[in-house]
Every structure is written in structure tokens, then in C-alpha cells.
């Protein structure tokens, strides 16, 4: 694909709405809409055919999950042999890189048709439970891979980013070379293995295995610094909150097994086909309630793993883990597992009248809530965490408003730019001894040795903020916004997301303008950093930067010998690659399917089929428009301008408040606005006290109940048991004194007893 072609496509896409806007007479618009609806019905008619029965995939596809497993074993062996070098990092990069290469091969073969789409590659028979003859009486879960274009999309960025972040971590984790390094890479590889089981498994149980596996690795890596109480707490929190969601997933899985008699995707999709047909003919009553319940349960699992309301609270705390982990697991891959689950089970979700609207509303509200919290935080990594929650909300909203393509595209672009943002923040954290407070850093991007980080951060911020036209984040966010406004029932969600887009642009550039540009200033964090053995030859200029600010009286004496530690080649290389990739994926918007490469992939996967059925149902019933408009304009085209303007406003506000005229790191013009918003800023900084709320309404009652039950157990249950012991004990101790051991005593009592007996007998006889 030539660059010129891509460029001309962009121009054409931008130019066409101008023409449409010029001649926007009402009548014309109406006729256009009618055309749209008809087009969709026609589109639906040809798409409703059943999801094809899977072909047989080649066995080499199994290398994709197996190679990370090999990496895991090798890293564990490194730990066993007490390797004190960066060997595990290189082994990991090798294994994951090979896995990525195989994934690329898989993608090429699937897209060229050499591997059927979908197809199943069965490794071995894993679990088979049979209670009678025939398929109806058994549950089969093979270690098999379900390969379709959705799998390809996910695995491409999972293995690709894992490789890059593994490389980044080789430098980032250098301070821990030894046992910690091996432990880190073992869990890292195990994570990629679990993630590939999750994404590639051909049945829900293998997905569940991967689901729990990634949860475990997430727990292990959040608690990587296990001597730090807050890290241990955060790991526990993540694990427990995920358990709540996983309960939903487990129940959904069981209900699927009970109702469909199978947990293999191919069988489920085949058996769901009659229901989809009923849906497209408007016979909603023919879909049993059980079938409608399944997606709701699966959704709870997705909300837990992908940090949506009300289960999002674990993700911000998960930032206690090393930054590469935050980038890979808690920004790019694992947290998109929920989105994957919904996309994979999309035909099932369409069958429920409530599931997708709930998904959409949850996503939109999460996006808004997390964005408002992100605006008020000072810890840059935490801001990025909230922005991840917020962007995941966008993805769910995209799924909910029936633009699974938009959601998947946003997952894809977000994976790149968010990983890059985290890695940039990580480089800052690494270099400034754990300093993450945006009030204590300024102008980092212009310090010598920090150019690449500064540029990468700028690119990431532009993408996240949705800077018009030149960023991939703009195009993917646009697709979701357009989808929301185009869906007549989801316009409110569109507005929420549009507001959130503005907030996102603001808080993103708040970080950029505070930390990476402006006057040079820094206060190192309190993390003792093992520099020993690192070359310091490259950061000469730092003494100078430091001396500049010695006169500001910021108590630098304690850190008099601190040198910022500019990133080395591994970090810089990875950031550079990601920065290029974040731009390059724009091109994907204009090649392939009618809405870009991703739409081409999604349309040929399980995430698509029902979508058209739904449109058909909406269109054929009550003559409802399948396409709503944005103030009379086509929603998709209007959004290109509106969202661009909104993003631009957000950036401009951040510029005015946090860059223009700022002379110190700690203060900015935004502080002057604080009295205007009253306690709102404080509340937002306190994360709207959601943690405290959960503490009050869930944890405290549970704790009280636990104590009450403990008391009941102690007093009543134990009391009854103790009573059985106490009665003979008391009887014995009260009778014991009568056993004096003196022979005459016994004799006397015998004689006395005899006398009494005789007396009684005599009295009675008389």
C-alpha cells in the first residue's frame, strides 16, 4: 500500500462529508437515510447465514501458546540455577518474538484463505465428561485453538506488545537482576501463555483457564514488590475483585453447558443460529429466558476483568506493580479480555434484549467516572490507570452500541498508545527514583537523554486525546462515537462519550504540559535505586539541570548526589517502535474492509454476524430507522469534526491552565480555578470516595457479620458441645469428696444404708 494512496483515502474520507453538509436539505437527508436503512437490510440478508462450521487448522498454530510456556519453563530454570544475568530477558524476548512471528504467519494464512476462517486446531483431548452415549450426554473441552480473524487481531497485538515490553523490561528491571528478574520473567511468560489460551481457546473452559491464569499472573506481578505492604494489598484487591466477576463468568459457562449442551464455540454458535434467525424475524418471544441470561452472566465476568463499574476499583491500585506489567497486563492486553469475551460471544449477547444496553451504559458511565477521577490525580501513573479504565469504558460502549468494529479498533490502537504512555511514565519513574508526582517534575522532555521519552509521551498523549486526523486514537474513538450517535437508542451514550472525550484530552495534556515541557525542575522520589554497574557516561548534562534549581530551596540537600537516570537503548528503542506503530495503525483505517482493516477482520468473525441481524430486526420492525443522525447530519461523518473539535478544546484548556505562564513545577493557573469548582476537585481527587463507599457498604457489614457469626459460633455452637463435657465433669467433681478412701467410712455408710432399708421394710410390712 503506498503512502500516497493512504493519504488520498484520508482526504477523500474527509472531503465527502463536506459535500454532504453543503446540500443538507431535510428532504435530501431523509431520502439518504431511507437509502441507508435499505442498504443495511440488504446487507443483513446476505450476512445472516450461519457462522461457518470450522475447518481444521494446522498444528503449528499450537506454537503460539506453547512458545511462551517454553519461556516460562526456561525462566523458572534460570531461577532454579540462580542465574545472575539478563539471560531470562533474552530468552523471553526470543520465545515471545518467535510466538509473534508464528502469529503473523497465522494472520497471513488466514487472510489469504490458506487457513479456513474459522478453523479449529486441536492439540489434545483435555477434558471429556460423558454420562451416556452420544454427544448430547457429554461435555468436551479440548486443548484446541479457535482461529478466526478476531483471534488473529487479538493475538497480533498481544504477542507483539509482549515482545516489545519484554525488551523494555530487560532494562527497566535491571536493578533486580537475580532471583527477582527470573521471577518477573517467569510470570511474564506465564501471562502470555494464559492470555493466548484465553484468546485462542476453542471452548469456554479453556478461556476460563486462561482467564484465571492471567488473573494469577496479574496478582503475582502486582505483588512483585512483595515486601511493600501496599503492593501486597493491591494484589489481594485485584484478585478478590476479579473473583466476583469470575463467579459470573463461571455461572455463564455452566449455564451455557446446560442449555447448549456444549462449551465449544463452534457448537454454541451453530445451536444459537435458530435463535438468531428468530431475532432477525422479530420473534423475540422464541428466545428462552435462559439464553438471555447467559450473556448477562458472562458480562459480569467481563466487567471484573476489564475494570468496569462497579468492579473497576482494583485497576488503579494495580499500578503498584512494575511499570512494564502495568503497560502490558493492565493497559494493553489482559484488561481487554473482557472486551474479547463480549466480542467472541457477540452472537449470544445479541440474543438478549438487556445485555448490550447494559454493556453500553456501564461502559459509558465508567468512561465518564474514570475520566473525572483522572482529571484530579497527581500521580501520573495513576492518571494513566484511570484513563485505561475510561478507555475500556469506550470499548464496552462501542460493543454495546453495536459497533464491534469500533470497539475492536479502539482496543487495537489503545494497546499501542497506552502501552507507550505507561512505558514513558515508567521511564520517568525509573529515572527519577520512583517520582511520579506531576507537581514535582517539570520539563523532563527537554532534559538531555530524555528526548525519545518526551516525543513518545507526546505521541501517546496526542493519540489518547484524539488529536484530529493524524492520530490513530482519533479514528478509533470516532468510530465508537459515530456508532453511538448512529444508533437511535444510544444517543445519550454518545453525548456522555463525547463529554468524556473532552475530559480525556484535558487530563492527558495536563500530564504532558506539567511533566514533559515547561521549566526544568525535578525532585527525585524516595526509591533507592541500584545504579551500581550502570554506565553514567551518557548523562553529563544532568548536573547542570540540577544546578539550575538548586537555588529554589526545595530541600535538595538530601538528594545532593542524585542524577536522573536517562533511559538506555532498550527503553528508547521500544518507545521509538511504539511511537511509529501508534501512527502507522492509522493506515489500517483506510485499507481492508469498508471501515478499515479491523472492520474487515471483525466482519469475518463471530463478533459480527448477529450485528446485522439486529439491524435487520430494527429495520423490519415498525419501520424504525436503523441509522440515527447527528442534528440532521450523518453521525459518522459529523463525529469526525465534532470529536476533533472537542479533543482540540481539551488540549487547549490544558495548555492554558498548565503550560502557559507556568514558572514552577508545583503551581499552575489551574490552582486559581479550584475555588470555583468548590469541593468537586477534592472529591474527584478522593476518587469520589468509591473505595470508602465499598468499604462502608460491603467490607464493614461483612466484617461485622463475621464477628457476629464468630460470637454465635463461640457462644452457642461451642457452648452446646462444651455442655456435654461439663455435665459429667461437674457431677464427678461434686461426688468425688464422698470417696474418702477410708474403709470404715464405706462400711458405716453400708451399715447405715442397710439399717434404713430394714427400717423401710419393717415399716411397710407393718
Amino acid at each position, binding site marked *: 500500500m503506498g503512502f500516497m494512496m493512504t493519504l488520498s483515502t484520508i482526504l477523500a474520507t474527509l472531503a465527502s462529508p463536506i459535500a454532504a453538509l453543503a446540500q443538507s436539505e431535510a428532504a435530501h437527508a431523509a431520502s439518504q437515510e431511507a437509502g441507508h436503512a435499505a442498504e443495511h437490510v440488504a446487507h443483513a440478508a446476505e450476512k445472516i447465514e450461519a457462522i461457518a462450521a470450522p475447518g481444521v487448522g494446522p498444528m503449528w498454530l499450537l506454537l503460539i501458546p506453547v512458545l511462551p510456556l517454553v519461556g516460562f519453563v526456561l525462566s523458572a530454570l534460570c531461577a532454579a540455577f540462580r542465574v545472575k544475568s539478563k539471560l531470562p530477558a533474552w530468552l523471553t524476548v526470543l520465545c515471545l518474538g518467535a510466538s509473534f512471528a508464528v502469529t503473523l504467519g497465522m494472520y497471513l494464512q488466514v487472510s489469504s484463505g490458506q487457513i479456513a476462517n474459522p478453523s479449529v486446531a486441536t492439540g489434545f483431548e483435555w477434558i471429556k465428561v460423558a454420562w451416556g452415549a452420544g454427544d448430547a450426554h457429554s461435555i468436551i473441552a479440548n486443548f484446541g485453538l479457535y482461529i478466526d480473524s478476531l483471534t488473529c487481531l487479538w493475538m497480533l497485538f498481544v504477542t507483539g506488545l509482549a515482545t516489545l515490553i519484554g525488551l523494555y523490561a530487560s532494562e527497566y528491571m535491571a536493578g533486580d537482576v537475580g532471583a527477582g528478574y527470573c521471577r518477573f520473567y517467569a510470570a511474564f511468560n506465564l501471562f502470555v501463555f494464559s492470555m493466548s489460551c484465553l484468546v485462542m481457546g476453542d471452548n469456554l473452559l479453556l478461556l476460563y483457564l486462561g482467564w484465571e491464569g492471567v488473573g494469577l499472573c496479574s496478582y503475582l506481578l502486582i505483588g512483585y514488590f512483595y515486601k511493600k505492604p501496599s503492593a501486597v494489598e493491591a494484589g489481594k484487591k485485584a484478585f478478590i475483585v476479579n473473583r466476583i466477576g469470575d463467579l459470573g463468568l463461571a455461572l455463564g459457562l455452566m449455564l451455557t453447558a446446560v442449555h447448549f449442551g456444549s462449551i465449544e464455540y463452534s457448537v454454541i454458535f451453530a445451536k444459537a443460529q435458530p435463535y438468531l434467525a428468530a431475532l432477525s424475524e422479530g420473534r423475540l418471544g422464541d428466545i428462552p429466558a435462559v439464553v438471555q441470561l447467559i450473556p448477562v452472566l458472562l458480562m459480569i465476568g467481563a466487567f471484573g476483568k476489564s475494570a468496569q463499574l462497579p468492579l473497576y476499583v482494583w485497576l488503579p491500585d494495580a499500578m503498584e506493580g512494575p511499570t512494564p506489567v502495568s503497560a502490558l497486563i493492565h493497559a494493553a492486553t489482559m484488561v481487554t479480555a473482557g472486551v474479547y469475551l463480549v466480542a467472541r460471544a457477540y452472537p449470544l449477547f445479541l440474543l438478549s434484549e438487556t445485555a448490550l444496553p447494559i454493556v453500553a451504559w456501564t461502559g459509558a458511565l465508567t468512561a465518564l467516572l474514570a475520566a473525572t477521577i483522572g482529571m484530579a490525580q497527581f500521580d501520573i501513573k495513576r492518571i494513566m490507570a484511570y484513563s485505561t479504565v475510561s478507555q475500556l469504558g469506550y470499548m464496552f460502549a462501542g460493543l454495546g452500541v453495536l459497533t464491534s468494529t469500533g470497539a475492536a479498533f479502539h482496543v487495537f490502537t489503545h494497546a499501542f498508545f497506552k502501552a507507550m504512555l505507561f512505558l514513558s511514565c515508567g521511564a520517568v519513574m525509573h529515572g527519577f527514583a520512583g517520582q511520579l508526582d506531576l507537581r514535582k517534575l517539570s520539563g523532563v522532555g527537554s532534559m538531555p537523554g530524555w528526548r525519545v521519552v518526551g516525543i513518545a509521551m507526546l505521541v501517546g498523549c496526542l493519540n489518547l486525546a484524539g488529536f484530529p486526523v493524524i492520530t490513530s486514537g482519533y479514528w478509533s474513538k470516532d468510530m465508537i462515537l459515530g456508532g453511538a450517535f448512529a444508533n437511535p437508542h444510544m444517543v445519550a451514550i454518545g453525548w456522555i462519550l463525547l463529554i468524556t472525550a473532552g475530559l480525556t484530552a484535558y487530563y492527558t495534556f495536563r500530564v504532558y504540559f506539567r511533566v514533559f515541557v515547561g521549566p526544568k525542575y525535578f525532585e527525585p522520589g524516595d526509591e533507592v535505586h541500584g545504579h551500581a554497574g550502570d554506565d553514567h557516561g551518557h548523562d553529563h548534562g544532568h548536573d547542570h539541570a540540577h544546578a539550575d534549581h538548586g537555588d529554589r530551596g526545595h530541600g535538595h540537600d538530601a538528594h545532593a548526589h542524585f542524577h536522573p537516570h536517562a533511559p538506555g537503548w532498550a527503553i528508547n528503542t521500544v518507545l521509538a517502535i511504539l511511537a511509529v506503530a501508534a501512527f502507522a495503525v492509522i493506515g489500517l483505517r483506510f485499507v481492508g474492509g469498508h471501515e478499515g482493516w479491523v472492520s474487515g477482520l471483525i466482519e469475518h468473525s463471530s463478533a459480527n454476524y448477529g450485528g446485522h441481524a439486529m439491524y435487520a430486526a430494527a429495520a423490519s420492525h415498525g419501520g424504525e430507522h436503523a441509522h440515527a443522525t447527528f442534528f440532521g447530519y450523518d453521525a459518522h461523518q459529523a463525529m469526525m469534526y465534532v470529536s476533533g473539535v472537542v479533543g482540540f478544546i481539551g488540549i487547549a484548556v490544558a495548555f492554558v491552565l498548565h503550560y502557559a505562564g507556568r514558572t514552577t513545577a508545583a503551581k499552575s493557573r489551574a490552582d486559581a480555578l479550584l475555588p470555583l469548582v468548590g469541593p468537586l476537585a477534592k472529591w474527584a481527587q478522593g476518587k469520589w470516595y468509591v473505595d470508602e463507599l465499598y468499604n462502608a457498604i460491603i467490607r464493614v457489614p461483612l466484617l461485622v457479620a463475621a464477628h457476629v457469626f464468630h460470637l454465635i459460633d463461640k457462644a452457642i455452637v461451642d457452648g452446646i458441645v462444651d455442655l456435654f463435657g461439663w455435665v459429667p465433669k461437674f457431677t464427678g467433681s461434686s*461426688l*468425688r*469428696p*464422698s*470417696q*474418702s*478412701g*477410708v*474403709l*470404715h467410712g464405706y*462400711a*458405716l455408710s453400708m*451399715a447405715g444404708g442397710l439399717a434404713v432399708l430394714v427400717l423401710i421394710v419393717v415399716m411397710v410390712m407393718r
Partner: protein
Amino acid sequence: MNMLASIPGVLDAAVLAQASAPAPMAQSQLAHYMFISAALFAIGLIGFLTRRNLIIMFLCTELMFQAAGVALIAFSRFHMNMTGQTFVIFILTVAAAEAAMALALVVLLFRRRESLNAEEFSEMKG
């Protein structure tokens, strides 16, 4: 009895009964025996309760024992029922064996404590 009588050479039962049939005891006579029995028992009991020497105490139990024997024989004669007398013969036999054993125990106890005082032996105190 009739069967025995019908066998030639066997004494006529009626004749035998007439020749040696003792008269039943009078009720006043029984009271004397009862008095003696009660006195024996009381002496044994008082001795048992007041004395501390194991051998004496043992002898006292023998006294009470024989008091019961006297009462049994007296009643046996009073009712003309030989069961009581048979029983007493058994009792005497058992008492002889029991006396042998009890005295052996007393010897063993003495060896242990170098004393025959009953109050020395109170290990079974509760």
C-alpha cells in the same frame, strides 16, 4: 417317691418318714435363733466398724457371715425346707476359700506397708 416304693428291696417311704420325721420348729424357738443371729451380726458389725486391725476386721466379717448362716438354718428348720441348709453348706465351703484368699491378701498388704491398720490403706480416695 411312689416309684421308689414300688421297687422291691427299698424301704417303704411311709415307714421311713414316720421313723425319722422331726417336728417343725415352734415360732417361739425361731425367735431365739433369730435373736442369736442378730446378736452375732451386731457384734460383727460393731467390731468391723470400731476396730482398725485388718485381721480383726476380717474376723468380724466372718461373724456377720455366720450370723446369716444361723438365720438360714433356723428358717430352713422352721419351714421344713432343706434348701436353706444346703445353701449354708455351700456358704461354708466358699467362706473357707474366701478366708484363705483374704488372709493371703492381708499378708500381702502387710508386706507393703509394715502395718495392719486399715486407715493406712486409702489410696482409692477420690
